[in-house]
């Protein structure tokens, strides 16, 4: 198994199956499911375990349903929000 650095969690019930995240993912890690959610949309799922946590999918998602995690210590522009919502997390800023 490749060295995993990132992961995403999708709020599938809010997903509208627009597929914009799918083409935005440089890793080809995600796709639309054959199943549908309560609203009747084919929701997004992970199909490969090669997510790098680049955030692209979350950025283009019009419905803000994706949460992104990344294991590398590299700082991203979202530091401020993270510090607001998490009390005791360690941030590696560089």
């Amino acid at each position: 198994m490749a060295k995993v650095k990132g992961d995403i969690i999708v709020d599938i019930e809010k997903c509208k199956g627009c597929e914009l995240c799918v083409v935005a993912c440089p890793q080809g890690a995600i796709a639309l499911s054959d199943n549908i959610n309560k609203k009747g949309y084919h929701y997004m799922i992970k199909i490969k375990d090669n997510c790098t946590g680049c955030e692209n999918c979350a950025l283009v998602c019009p419905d803000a349903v994706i949460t992104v995690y990344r294991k590398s210590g590299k700082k991203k522009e979202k530091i401020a929000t993270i510090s607001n919502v998490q009390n005791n997390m360690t941030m590696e800023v560089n």
Partner: protein
Amino acid sequence: MDEKDLKLNETEFLNEDICVAEYLVYKKPETLIDIDLHYCPGCGHGVVHRLLMEVIEEMNIVDKVIGVAPVGCSVFAYNYMDIDMQEAAHGRATAVATGIKRVLPDKLVFTYQGDGDLAAIGTAETIHACNRGENFLIVFINNAVYGMTSGQMAPTTLPGMVTTTTPFGRDTSITGFPLKISELVAQLPGVCYVTRTSVHTAGNVRRTKKAIQKAFEYQMQNKGTCLIEVLSNCPSNWKMTPLESNKFIEEEMIPFYPLGDIKVPKEEK
């Protein structure tokens, strides 16, 4: 929201060692209220709403911001933004914002308007607010169509583009040419920052967010009017899938409405 409430992925790949608070890098902002957006699948309005709320949260200015919603698909913008907001009559958002900003000069004010709202029925209010150099931000969603009223021609509709009121394509000899309102207001001395962005790719989403951030900073420095034109899609009325609509932005919209800064404050040139 607690991560535990989120529906888990329908996959065996969930990496429990990664999905922990310590490694969280992107989470939707708290100021974006956690209810379903009413927009069509893939609609750019949702992205711009989220970016505004991200910036406002990150800059820690929730208690300073007052937003003005338009009449258009985003008429309910105030349902999703956990900030004080006013809903303006069609086209009058910049007049309403003028009223707010003039009596509360220390607050940060923005309008959020579609092309019909800002560049057709509200053209006079837009130009005069800009000409007075009203010290607020105008977020202008250019989707080249009247979204809410189901797809009539907008002032920004491209030549030849089919809409419900230009069924044979926009004939400029009858309906005139698309109005490049950003280029127009950039000439006014009261305007400090005009830029055109899009939200059809991750990179452009990042640039749009940066622009919003800058505009609020300029407002804090009393620099004058800022206008951010965001090229956005309307898959429903363009009769396209979301993916096709983003391709249309890339291939048809951007060549006509080039992306990038149209005007920046003098010091930065």
